[in-house]
């Protein structure tokens, strides 16, 4: 048992930290939505008002809401179809090259949606989009255009499918194959087993994945901004951004719209929790289950072709576009064949782009802010996870709730909230990399917390009790028993936080200043100013570095843990 003073000191300290990271930013937004001037703007005539909400009843916001609904529903359908089929093929079928299929299903996660959107805008917009050039070359009179609602939904679908895949594949792996075999022995056909046994068992996961990706698409900013803005398609998140950044800025209207967006995403996240939490079908977890393999017969290669097509669209084509863009010196491309003509290619633009000062300082900023967030966030996540799962300290249930709260907050809103929280704070973090790190910790705390908490929960209490009985005080138990046992998941969480932080764009947009541009910001700014070869070159470097970091992290883990 913890001695009394510490009993309250630790939870209070943790609530203070989480308050600054999560609660205060939300309160700032809510406050700004109800007054007539931005927080800390120095405006003396601040008054309470509902006018900001009244302002939302405009045709523009109505259209934005409709656009958001269209692209999120369309994107969710595509992501579900892709993710579920891939998950089932990997978990239950005899599809060839399963390792490749598995890889193809998660690879798109390495491409940040910012980079993917930029790549797709060169692949499929206007007559000079690479895909359109190819179609023209083949004599097909179609133009594919991703700068449209359909295009945004398609890009959403392609790049959010891995989330569905991971959740559904995880659920399928937990369904004991005996249950499907029992149905087969009872005389059920494959389709019948799927409908009556498999699907009902993974239904909570499918439902959870649906709600999750829907909420993610509703709040997504880079995709609709890059693909929609050029043709005037505005979603709610883009509308918030525009209200904040266009002159004259309307921060209070932006706040009101933010509150609305938080309510939407939070209710979907809440429903998702309910879907995943209400029924626990897991019968046997973990080791050594040999899943029943369904023979696809003649569909085997058709299924494989489907996977190849997905890999081509989600990974190969954008990568090609990036390489093409990074090494192209001649911007005029008359035909598809010209893409491969050596005369139009050169290493110069690539070298130029990468040797610019922007890139060097951007990379350094990304790395430093990311490292700060990964180490700080990992440590915070461990302390919270430990307190929640291993102590009887007061308020630990609320602690977990607050730590998971950012899942329900759109990154854009979080960015604005954190800006307002720290811009006037007595500690001078605004304008430094620290505020970016703070933003990343706040945004990705749920991911870090969940991974570490679940691995702590998996450690049998007795292992720690045995050390206490052996005479070890709590601090020593943590150092000698708990930490070594969860080291693998703590280290992997730190890596995940690092990668997520380096990729982050949306919240960073409100937290960076001229001296603290991150690589993602640099890419975004180059895209906005139309320097395509710089965008492509930096994106290539960026993606390669992130992939390398992920692979290195995995290697390190496998070697050490």
């Amino acid at each position, binding site marked *: *048992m913890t001695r009394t003073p510490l009993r309250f000191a630790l939870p209070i300290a943790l609530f203070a930290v989480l308050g600054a990271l999560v609660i205060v930013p939300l309160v700032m937004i809510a406050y700004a939505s109800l007054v007539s001037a931005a927080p800390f703007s120095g405006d003396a005539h601040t008054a309470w008002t509902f006018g900001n909400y009244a302002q939302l009843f405009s045709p523009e916001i109505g259209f934005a809401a409709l656009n958001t609904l269209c692209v999120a529903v369309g994107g969710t359908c595509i992501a579900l179809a892709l993710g579920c089929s891939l998950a089932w093929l990997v978990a239950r079928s005899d599809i060839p090259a399963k390792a490749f299929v598995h890889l193809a299903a998660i690879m798109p996660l390495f491409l940040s949606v910012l980079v993917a959107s930029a790549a797709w805008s060169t692949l499929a917009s206007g007559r000079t989009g690479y895909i359109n050039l190819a179609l023209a070359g083949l004599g097909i009179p179609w133009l594919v255009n991703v700068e449209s609602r359909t295009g945004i939904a398609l890009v959403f679908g392609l790049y959010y499918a891995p989330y569905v895949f991971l959740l559904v594949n995880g659920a399928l792996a937990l369904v004991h194959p005996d249950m499907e075999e029992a149905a087969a022995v009872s005389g059920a056909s494959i389709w019948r087993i799927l409908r009556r046994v498999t699907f009902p068992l993974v239904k909570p996961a499918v439902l959870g994945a649906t709600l999750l990706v829907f909420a993610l698409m509703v709040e997504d900013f880079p995709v609709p901004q890059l693909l929609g803005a050029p043709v005037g398609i505005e979603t709610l998140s883009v509308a918030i951004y525009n209200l904040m950044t266009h002159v004259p800025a309307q921060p209070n209207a932006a706040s009101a719209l933010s509150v609305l967006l938080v309510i939407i995403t939070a209710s979907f996240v809440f429903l998702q929790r309910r879907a995943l939490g209400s029924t626990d079908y897991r019968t046997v977890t973990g080791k050594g289950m040999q899943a029943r393999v369904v023979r696809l017969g003649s569909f085997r290669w058709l299924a494989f072709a489907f996977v190849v097509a997905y890999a081509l669209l989600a990974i190969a084509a954008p990568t090609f576009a990036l390489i093409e863009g990074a090494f192209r010196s001649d911007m005029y491309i008359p035909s598809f064949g010209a893409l491969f003509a050596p005369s139009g290619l050169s290493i110069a633009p690539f070298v130029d782009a990468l040797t610019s000062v922007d890139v060097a300082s951007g990379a350094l900023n990304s790395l430093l802010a990311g490292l700060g967030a990964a180490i700080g966030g990992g440590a915070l996540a461990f302390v919270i996870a430990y307190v929640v799962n291993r102590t009887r300290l007061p308020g630990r249930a609320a602690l977990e709730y607050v730590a998971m709260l950012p899942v329900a907050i759109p990154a854009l809103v979080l960015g604005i909230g954190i800006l307002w929280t720290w811009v006037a704070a007595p500690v001078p973090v605004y304008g430094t990399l620290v505020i970016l790190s703070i933003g990343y910790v706040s945004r990705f705390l749920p991911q870090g917390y969940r991974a570490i908490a679940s691995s702590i929960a998996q450690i*049998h209490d*007795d*292992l720690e*009790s*045995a*050390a*206490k*009985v*052996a*005479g*070890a*005080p709590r601090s*020593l138990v943590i150092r*000698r*028993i708990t930490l*070594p*046992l969860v080291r693998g998941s703590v280290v992997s969480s730190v890596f995940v936080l690092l990668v997520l932080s380096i990729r982050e764009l949306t919240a960073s947009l409100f937290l960076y200043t001229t001296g603290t541009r991150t690589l993602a910001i640099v890419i975004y700014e180059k895209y906005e100013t139309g320097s395509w070869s710089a965008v492509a070159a930096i994106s290539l470097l960026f993606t390669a570095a992130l992939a390398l970091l992920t692979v290195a992290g995995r290697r390190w883990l496998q070697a050490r843990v």
Partner: protein
Amino acid sequence: MNIGITGLEKSFGATRIIDALDLEIESGTMVVLLGPSGCGKTTTMRCIAGLDVPSAGRITIGERVVFDARNGTNVPVDRRRVGMVFQSYAIWPHMTVFENVAFPLEIARVARTEIAARVAHVLDLVGLGDVGARGASLLSGGQMQRVALARSLVNEPSVLLLDEPLSNLDARLRDRLRVQLREIQTQLKITALYVTHDQNEALSLADRIVVMRAGRVLQSGAPIEIYGAPRTSAVAAFLGYSNVLDATIESTDGTAATARLSTDAPIHGTLSSSDAVTDVCACVRPTDVRVASLDGRESDSLPDNTFAGEVILASFEGTHIHYQLRGDDGVVWDALSADVAGAHRLGSRVAVAIDARNVLLLPRDGVPPADVLA
């Protein structure tokens, strides 16, 4: 060192796990807490170790008060100097066997050379002299159990607590380790508290058995004493009296009595106490139920305590045959017969006979036998 528990109570929310428990464990003896799961026996042990905090009461180990609700004394778990073997063994998978066993000594800042000697000694004691360098996650269940025991003994704890230490092992290994455990305990003369739901384990290990139910002690005493004279039907049911039948006393003559079963059949038996109870249970061990052929005898001309019936289950178990017999009045008897040669077949008509001195008429305390055997 002896352990003294007085007025111990523990509640989780509204449910009371331990209810006004008094228990005295004499120095150097092994006491076994026996009871069904959820009876509070493990919680009692955890309260002694300091892993759970009682709601009320007082616990002493030797002369030292480790817990007293009245003045707020609560010695933290790491200062109580107890040894404990967990049901899950709790062997740390990231350490070697040596490191696991050395841990308590390391915490106590024992010198490195002495640690090596003491770990080697205790590993020898449990019969694991040669596996010290091995990673703990590679051990078999029996080996883990021994490592756990070695770890709990290595720092010469004042008392040893064992929480169903053998329940995850297979039957043969369990028997062997049980004997070893008793040998080590008597050799070291250590005070031990052992928790189990297995009556055989309790009978063979204990100096004293404490039968618990619903957070209370039903009966405590030496194994032979408690086995021969259970005080109530619930205790009898725990200790292997598999026939526990409701009955009502009709007449008594000293300790001899006649009762009627719920089927109205008369049964002669022995009263355990002079208490004037009429609602009793007739408790009979399966080995005391004799099974004989009816040989054409009329069922209404049978002697006292003999019932006509039919074999509904006959299961050969090596040294004996396990029967279930349904009397013509519907009562089902459980019997173990050593007469393997003269086996009765399924469906054959038999006479079920029980000596009156083997029928214990005990105060009924409302535990259905099925609940106990589960």
